[in-house]
């Protein structure tokens, strides 16, 4: 499963609870999918599953507000870790 698919599955199972179309660019905030409680759950998942460390100032809309943004963020962090 790709990084994006894993993130999508986590989001679906934990915040959406169903088979709704989720476009890569759909805003989690606009769509009511993530709020200030659930975003911390997402962060814990990312840290555990992808072995990255999320800094407090990285929990922002630029990094966390859509599937593609979260995916890009995770890939970026992984690349930095490997480098």
């Amino acid at each position: 499963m790709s990084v994006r698919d894993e993130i999508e599955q986590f989001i679906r199972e934990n915040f959406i609870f169903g088979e709704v179309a989720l476009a890569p660019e759909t805003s989690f905030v606009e769509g009511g999918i993530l709020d200030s409680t659930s975003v911390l759950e997402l962060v814990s998942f990312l840290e555990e599953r992808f072995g990255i460390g999320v800094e407090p100032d990285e929990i922002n809309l630029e990094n966390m507000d859509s599937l593609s943004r979260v995916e890009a963020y995770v890939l970026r962090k992984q690349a930095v870790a490997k480098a």
Partner: protein
Amino acid sequence: MCGIAGMVDREGSRPPRRDELARMIACVEHRGPDGFGLRLDPPAGLAHARLSIIDIAGGSQPLANEDGSVWITYNGEVYNYVELRPLLEAKGHRFRTRSDTEVLVHAYEEWGDAFVERCNGNFALALWDAPRRRLLLARDRLGIRPLYWAEHDGRLLFASEIKALFAAGLPARIDPVGLDQCFVLWTTFAPRTVAAGVNELPPGHLLVVDEGRPPRVVRYWDVPAPPPADALITDERRAAAELRALLEDSVLLRLRADVPVGAYLSGGLDSTAATALVRAITDTPLETYSVAFADREYDERAEQELAVRALGTRHHQVEVTYEDIASAFPRVVELAEKPMLRTAPVPLYLLAQLVRSHGTKVVLTGEGADEVFGGYDIFKETKIRQWWARRPESRMRPALLRRLYPFAPGANDRAVAFFEAFYREGIERPDDPAFSHRPTWRNGARNRAFYGVALAAAVTAHDPQEEALAVLGPALAGRSPLARAEYLEFKLFLAGHLLASQGDRMSLGHGVEGRYPFLDYRIVEFGQRLHPSLKLRGLAEKWLLRRAVADLLPAPVLERRKRPYTAPNVRSFLAGPGREMAEEMLSPAALADHGLFDPARVAGLTAKAFAGRPLGERENMAFVGILSAQLLARAWRRGAGGELAADAARFPLRELADETAAARQAPARDAERTGPR
């Protein structure tokens, strides 16, 4: 306090029957267990369940005027009946009782429908004017007492609670649009209810049912718009004195009763102020009552004890556990007759039980002060968001919201960007009449995702936000952002939730009458004339109220910041019998059975909840909202299947007092009466 019910046969084909009225009134017996009465006067029939508070010997209802031509069934208290009575006596009206009820009959005779404008109190009443074959329903200005009506099979039915309409044969069906309103706006919005075909008479309105004409809903009062800026009250010292005088008079009026009056004492400013005013103007011993929570996160015992010590009342407390909340929840929903997104009404139901167990029937409470004097966080939030809207790119302006909600998730932890994003909703439209409520409503609307296919289809053409604005918009037009937020709170949260699901229904579930000194209409009107800085000074709430009662309250109470009243939500249903009940009601089978919600989605939510994982605010609201809707659907189905009739059998058909009614009818027309009809 009381319950009322009745009907008018509009087509002359199905006159009301005694057993039908008995069944209807049996459904609201909890509101008035002290006596029953009915009056059959085809085409009309009126019924009454009584909680005796004023004129215990003489106040039985239904009650008539001198010649038996005008009959009333009435729930409420019109406190200024003492002042109205001599005016009516001077016009020649003769009284047989000391009751406020009889004053209303004569007031109607004397002043016609406009008599309600002279009434200060809370009421829901029905008057049958036999010579004119005319039914008049009236409801108090702010909606303290409930009143519902429906047209069914050629009859117009009315009652204090919806369940009594079902007992008269109206099919018990959920109105999807009403249900949707509850999820988005937190309450239905009058005239709509969660019961298909049932209308709520809006607060401050009459229903006029003239023979041969369609029923007419007529407004007689509304929360007035503030005057122009240069006419607002700004002199703090004079305003505080004026408010103090009003408050003392309001409390004094609300102590009028022939039974002892107690008070709720939450430890907050409002209930402590109401209690302190009682102590200041009377020397009768005072019993006070409060809720404590086993879960210390919600508990305010320390604050309550401080207030009790300072005011010297005899205090009683009920400690509420998760299990208490879960086990009372089904009954609470049945009484509230609408879904609720929070469990907060439940402790109030348990508190009323405590009050009743001490023999008290009447309590003063602090409701309304937040609406009248600028107490709610949503007002501060609106102020901050309006300021933010002027510079949406500012990082400093939204940071004030974190000071407002320091304990909210995200406010002071890593998720602050998401915390602020919530309040950004609608920031680009500061002139939106519902600017203040958009984040809340939008958040509620997100839970529509849990609707099943049929419910989603039924509400797809409706937007509760726009429908509320279609009705309230004209009144909002001339108001400032703060005044708009206040008006929406009066019309939606106060009338639809605080006074109803959390107020009248909970206290009268145990035959306890709540009285609301801050909701005296003179105080509400006074509040609308105050300059905003006398309400919110910076972000300090209820500025003027604090000054008006400063000499009566201990300093810690006076200086305490408002703490919103809440109760444990999902965590009440995670163990024991409460969990079993929730698991059963939220099972795929039960969900499919009622056909309201999407079983797969709800299963995801319940799995998360029952695993003990943290739920966000909105998920808590979804859980409690769906559970309560399921409980309501089940209760109504049972009712439709005959359980309500069984209920009537459970309350044996007492010898209802129409013998007395016949006796009362006897006196000949009073020749000396000169007032016009």
